[in-house]
């Protein structure tokens, strides 16, 4: 391929040279997304939206660590974990949109873009855990709780009736296993480190804990596994598993700020991607 000027090169369709293309194709391209007759399409869509929003907002939180993590290796690791979750979010938002198109805001953008960029905070279904921000110890506690819960949930979803969701879950399990190990190893390193690192790590766990109960409101079946993994990590890390009451139910004040950052370009330039 050769071009007379850079503008021509940029505007060519299907150009694979610009950081993996100038557009994002449908992540479910060519897949059979028919909802099984025994599954309620709206419930399936709402559930996928919830799982997709969790991944989308958590991914955004992890991206905050780009240029801010303690070491370059951890910056790369957190960006990679964020990328895995962004991929899960794309698949899940697309799955939600195919199952029940009435959930998608009526804008010309692709279904996943419409859901990510053209809903307001009160329409997001994510758990509040993923909205929170703090220091590195807090981030590791947050990632340990999130990936332990999600790994247990996805492991159970591998045998769910909807084949698309089951496939997304089976793929996610492999990724989440790496995410959980990464967070667990940091929690052990900091908890079982110096008295000062232990104090910071315990503070991180304590700050995350009011948001744990919410995770199990519609997934009580994986609570036992979650508790057992967290207990194992905390024991190795010489930390106590906190006992606290659940935080208030509303989205935290962080969410509108996250969305303002994430959505501003798409809303300012609605024709940029379609």
């Amino acid at each position, binding site marked *: 391929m050769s071009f007379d000027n850079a503008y021509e090169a940029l505007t060519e369709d299907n150009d694979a040279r610009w950081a*993996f293309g100038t557009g994002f194709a449908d992540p479910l*391209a060519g897949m059979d997304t028919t909802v099984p007759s025994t599954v309620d399409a709206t419930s399936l869509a709402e559930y996928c939206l919830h799982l997709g929003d969790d991944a989308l907002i958590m991914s955004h939180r992890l991206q905050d660590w780009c240029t801010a993590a303690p070491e370059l290796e951890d910056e790369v*690791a957190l960006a990679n974990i964020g990328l895995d979750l962004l991929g899960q979010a794309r698949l899940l938002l697309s799955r939600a949109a195919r199952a029940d198109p009435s959930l998608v805001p009526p804008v010309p953008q692709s279904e996943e873009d419409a859901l990510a960029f053209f809903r307001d905070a009160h329409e997001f279904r994510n758990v509040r855990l993923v909205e929170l921000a703090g220091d590195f110890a807090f981030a590791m506690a947050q990632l340990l709780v999130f990936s332990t819960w999600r790994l247990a949930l996805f492991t159970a979803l591998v045998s769910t009736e909807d084949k698309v969701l089951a496939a997304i879950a*089976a*793929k996610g399990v492999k990724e989440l296993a790496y995410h959980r190990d990464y967070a667990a190893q940091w929690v052990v390193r900091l908890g079982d480190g110096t008295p000062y690192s232990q104090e910071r790590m315990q503070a991180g766990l304590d700050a995350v804990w009011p948001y744990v109960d919410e995770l199990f409101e519609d997934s009580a079946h994986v609570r036992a596994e979650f508790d057992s993994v967290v207990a194992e990590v905390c024991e190795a890390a010489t930390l106590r598993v906190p006992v606290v009451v659940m935080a208030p139910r509303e989205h935290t004040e962080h969410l509108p700020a996250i969305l303002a950052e994430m959505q501003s370009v798409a809303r300012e330039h609605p024709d940029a991607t379609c």
Partner: protein
Amino acid sequence: MLATSVGTARAVAETVTDPELPMLTLADLGVLRDVEETPSGVIVTITPTYSGCPAMDAMRADLMVALHRAGYPEVDVRTVLSPAWTTDWITREGREKLAEAGIAPPGKAPRGPVTLALTAPPSRVACPRCGSLDTRLLSRFSATACRALRQCGSCAEPFEHVKEI
């Protein structure tokens, strides 16, 4: 699945290389799942390595271009998520090409229930430069989602390792 397809469209698709590991073809990597010639065109099926693999669009575009140039005007590139990609699908030839490029190929992928690893597992990864097994994990995540970063204790060189999944 692979055995049912015939024809030269498959041969063309098998020449397309991976955008991030250009020493490997998509077939070497195991992401090219099927190539089928039908009366209405060629149907190519690919699977992502990781959910967030940003190279899927580039793979799709490269497959389209290669097949168009080979005289197949109608090409449909489809995604399949199940069964999920595993490094066990990287061919023997693919593993040799990785090693030649200084990237340690993956060992056998873990099977069965997921286990929690609180410490890095003992090294079974040989340094692609000097062959020493005395290598340590620097980071499980590297330039791409599928690679980990390791360092050799014998020759001190850092190197990448396609981690088992």
